[in-house]
């Protein structure tokens, strides 16, 4: 499928150019910086809608492809395209961006143009990550993203931001260096940097294992998986609200996307051999991290840990296919887990974004994230209480919200792969509800805890609009997930074939 114009390039470069304009023209003019960024974000979102409308659901081939030579000496191309796995993530990015810009409207007073510019540039780069089909292009977007995020946390972050940024940067940077090495090896074997060529080339077992591990380090850090997850709570706690939203809603998804775009299709045999490792780490994330979340006293840390646990469902769902095939002899049941993982990514984008925005609303008013500083917020902020409980229920996977769909699918599929996978994954029903609703009880419910809470103002129009938009999407996707799943089927089926076809 393609349109008459290069839609993917538009989606990448429009925000980046807008970001640069804001950066240079917005100095000393915060009003312009805000409105221009918002306008660009809305325009990008509208321009991204044709991706869904014109998407051909019958094929797993790349669509809206753009391909020109970039550095011919090394056969590096400017090669873009989306399929059913990446298209929803692009839409998630453009959608979230509008809310991210709106959320920072009044909070950021210092160097607004740099803040807005950084986020606009980040958006372009994130879309670049999800659409790049040349591995070097992918790598450039992937690494370039670190810089604006690093600046956002380092400049507008909390008191321990230096520690947090360093941790964030080192983790992700060290992780991705291994990925680059893997790309270079693959290039020397195939003479191309095209990811699609990587998918097709045969690779020996030893090489596959090494490549798989290199990818694993890069993606595991991004997701993040146990035990390389400790950068995330720190980064979230220090990041400004919008930074947390982008981090949780989109950047974490790049890791999950990496597994389906690189690990499974490029190294299927190694994935099969090492699937126990990923499944084990995913289950640890689901069970262990949930208990860690239970005792957090900082709201952002709690939600950060809950993100790790929820992302455990993503990695679990992706790697269930091998156990299912070896147990039952065919892939029936695996697509449910894989699609569940994809749905979980999109849903987690909305829900974690909503949770961090909600915490931001409180933080803007009280300047603390400590659970103990709150109590009885609903008395003074009834609408906020309504949305907070709704998002918390979504986070606890209540049916009728998007949070349920992915978890449900992955639990069903996990049970098929191995009874114990299902049992351990299903513990989220209890512990996930426990940490989320216990926080709600202490923050939202109860009698007014102190004078600051008594003085709280309910949501203003802007905040209400942001919350209502997210609430609408979360419920819509929970009540009717089919439109999202429809676009994935062909690509997921193709991915399962790739993942189960030996390359030796």
């Amino acid at each position, binding site marked *: 499928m393609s349109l008459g114009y290069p839609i993917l390039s538009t989606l990448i470069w429009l925000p980046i150019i807008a970001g640069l304009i804001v950066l240079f023209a917005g100095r000393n003019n915060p009003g312009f910086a805000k409105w221009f960024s918002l306008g660009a974000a809305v325009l990008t979102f509208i321009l991204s809608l044709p991706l869904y409308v014109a998407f051909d659901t019958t094929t797993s081939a790349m669509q809206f492809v753009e391909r020109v030579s970039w550095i011919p000496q090394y056969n590096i191309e400017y090669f873009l395209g989306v399929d059913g796995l990446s298209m929803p993530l692009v839409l998630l990015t453009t959608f979230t961006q509008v809310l991210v810009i709106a959320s920072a409207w009044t909070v950021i007073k210092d160097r607004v143009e740099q803040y807005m510019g950084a986020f606009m540039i980040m958006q372009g780069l994130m879309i670049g990550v999800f659409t790049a089909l040349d591995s070097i292009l992918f790598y450039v977007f992937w690494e370039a993203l*670190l*810089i604006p995020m*690093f*600046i956002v946390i*380092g400049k507008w972050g909390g008191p321990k931001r230096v*520690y947090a940024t*360093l*941790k964030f940067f*080192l983790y992700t940077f060290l992780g991705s*260096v291994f990925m*680059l090495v893997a790309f*270079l090896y693959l290039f020397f074997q195939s003479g191309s940097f095209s990811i699609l060529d990587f998918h097709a080339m045969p690779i020996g077992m030893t090489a596959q294992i090494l490549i798989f591990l290199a990818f694993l380090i890069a993606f595991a850090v991004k997701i993040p998986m146990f*035990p390389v997850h*400790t*950068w995330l709570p720190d980064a979230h706690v220090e990041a400004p609200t919008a930074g947390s939203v982008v981090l949780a809603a989109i950047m974490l998804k790049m890791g999950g996307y990496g597994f389906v775009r690189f690990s499974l299709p490029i190294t299927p045999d190694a994935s099969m051999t090492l699937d126990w490792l990923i499944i084990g780490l995913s289950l640890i994330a689901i069970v262990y991290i949930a*208990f*860690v*979340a*239970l*005792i957090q006293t900082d709201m952002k840390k709690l939600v950060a840990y809950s993100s790790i646990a929820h992302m455990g469902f993503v990695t679990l769902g992706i790697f269930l296919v091998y156990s299912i095939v070896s147990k039952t002899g065919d892939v*029936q*049941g695996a*697509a*449910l887990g894989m*699609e*569940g993982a994809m749905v979980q990514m999109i849903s987690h984008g909305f829900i974690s974004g909503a949770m961090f925005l909600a915490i931001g609303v409180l933080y803007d008013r009280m300047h603390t994230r400590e659970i103990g500083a709150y109590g*009885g917020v609903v008395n003074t902020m*009834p609408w906020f209480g309504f949305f907070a*409980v709704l998002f918390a*229920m979504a986070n606890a996977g*209540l*049916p*009728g919200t998007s949070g*349920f769909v992915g978890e449900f*699918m992955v*639990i*069903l599929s*996990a*049970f*098929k792969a191995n*009874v114990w996978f*299902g049992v351990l994954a*299903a*513990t989220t*029903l*209890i*512990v996930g*509800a*426990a940490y989320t*609703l*216990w926080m709600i*009880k202490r923050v939202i*419910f*109860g009698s007014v805890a102190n004078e600051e809470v008594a003085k709280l103002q309910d949501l203003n129009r802007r905040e209400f609009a942001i919350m209502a938009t997210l609430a609408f999407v979360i419920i819509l996707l929970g009540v*009717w*997930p*089919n439109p999202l*799943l*429809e676009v994935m*089927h062909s690509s997921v089926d193709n991915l399962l074939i790739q993942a189960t076809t030996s390359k030796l």
Partner: protein
Amino acid sequence: MLHFILTVILLSPLFGSIAAGLFGRKIGRRGAHSATIFSVVVSTVLSAYVFFEYVFNGAEVYNAALYTWMVSDGIRFEIGFLVDSLTATMMLVVTFVSLMVHIYTIGYMDHDEDYDHSNAYYQRFFSYLSLFTFSMLSLVMANNFLQLFFGWEAVGLVSYLLIGFYMKRESAITANLKAFLVNRVGDFGFILGIAMVFVYFNTLDYQEFFDRLAEHEHTMMSFIPGLEWSVITVMVILLFIGAMGKSAQMPLHVWLPESMEGPTPISALIHAATMVTAGIFMVARLSPAYEMSEAALAFILVVGALTAFMMGLLGIIQNDIKRVVAYSTLSQLGYMTAALGASAYAASMFHVLTHAFFKALLFLAAGSVIIAMHHIQDIRQMGGLKRHMPVTYWAVLLGSLALIGFPGFSGFFSKDSILLAVNQTDSWGSSFAYTLLLMGVFVTAFYSFRMFFLVFHGEESDYVKSHKIHESPKVVTVPLILLAIPSVVLGWFMIEPVLSGRYFADAITVLPSHDVLANIYATQFDNVLGFIMHGFMTLPVWLALAGVALAWLFYMKRPDIPAWIQSKCTRANYVLENAYGFDRFNDIVFVKGSLRLGRFFWRSIDMRVIDTGMVNGTVRRVSDMATMFRESQTGYMYHYAFVMIFGLLGLLIWALW
């Protein structure tokens, strides 16, 4: 046409709820209760039509999809309707009781101590009531496990919101969190049960599931090496664990007594009449699967009988009027569950129906007493209320007679069917269960009439003497009267069709070898009057009367006797006061244990091993380097520079390769 009617029945309360919930301030109190009551009236009237069509005219079972929720892995997950006599009956009960509660609420929630008049609590309450009605309807009308689970969790959500309705009270918001989490423990089993349905039957649709049941009659599974279990048994027990949460069977019953923190109308609607019977309904709905596992049925029978007896005992020592009724609900749920275990699904559903009416009646009457007593709930401070509130008095009397199974009242027919069925079944543990249930009959009569005498008869307490106590307004008493009618007469019409198996013939499957009700019908039933007369010749009725008599003796005639017993049996009293210690056990093992585990994971593994050991070693070294760089820079933007250096390094590596 039927499809359209069903859709309207389902969605009408949802729209009512949205109107009252999101636009409550705009439409005001009148607008909110008018909108929600109208929406529920629509559902009730149409449900009555559907009920008539199915129960009297024997309409064809209707099974159709409303829309496709999703397609994945080639399986369609649909939202739809399965309507037969079982569904139609539940629909009418849910909408009718809900309507009564809606009307009653106008009077009950008019004034509230927790909220001042500017708060839109009144509209919110109506919104929740209608939302509950929608959720419960989607549960009972479901034609598949997915929608069942949706309704299951949605009623749990509304229950959570309503238990915590007085959100300033610490006790209320603790109770609702507890209710939600204990239910989630049940749901943990439930969702694994659903996963098993998916894994072995490749569908979540009821009908397809029933059609394929025979294929797996002998399939075995092994999840602990060396031990083999029947797939069907494991599956239905997992599903039943969900029912144990929702229908508050031991040991997952601990949330129900505390759910009384919610306002009384919802105790009647949710925690007595409808939601807590969802588990019973689910087992009856899935009777074809349960019939295939004798082990699961025996397990259900014993759990139910234990709950019936042990929870009844706790009713004796409660002094909060609502808690007495709550423990009685727990105990009656045990009866229903035990009937399921005896394969007497129809009797169990029969008891669900009669119980829905007489227990809603008792709760709403208790609420009426609470209004009159200005929100005092302690029965020791009441007494002699008969004179002041005659309608409520008669409501409680009729409700209690139905509850204890006095011959001729609705509860007599349903409870006697259960007792006869459990007596007849030859399942494992049946004689043990029967003994417990018989003793339960005595206990039920004792605690019911203990409350009845203490509240309405005897000396007026100081409070009653010193305050003006008067009967509640019409919006309160009319629902009481309307609920009293079915509580008294329903049994006369239903006993014959239920015992003969005709009533639920299109919905419930019972293996001929398990069909105790048919056996009773054949051997012990001539006509309704005969059945009543027969009741007088059997033990349960006399046990019930003995319970009433003893309550009268203890609390009217010789109040010194119970006090003396209490002082003599301190240990037994201690056990009962602490409700067998379930709460303490859960608190120590699960609550404190989880927190301790979380703290250990976080402090020892996350912080010490990973962060201090692996990460900060590295970060500290880099940090030192950063300090070095910072000193060599003139500005304070050291981290920008740091990024550039790393970027350069990356480029360099790339170029050199």
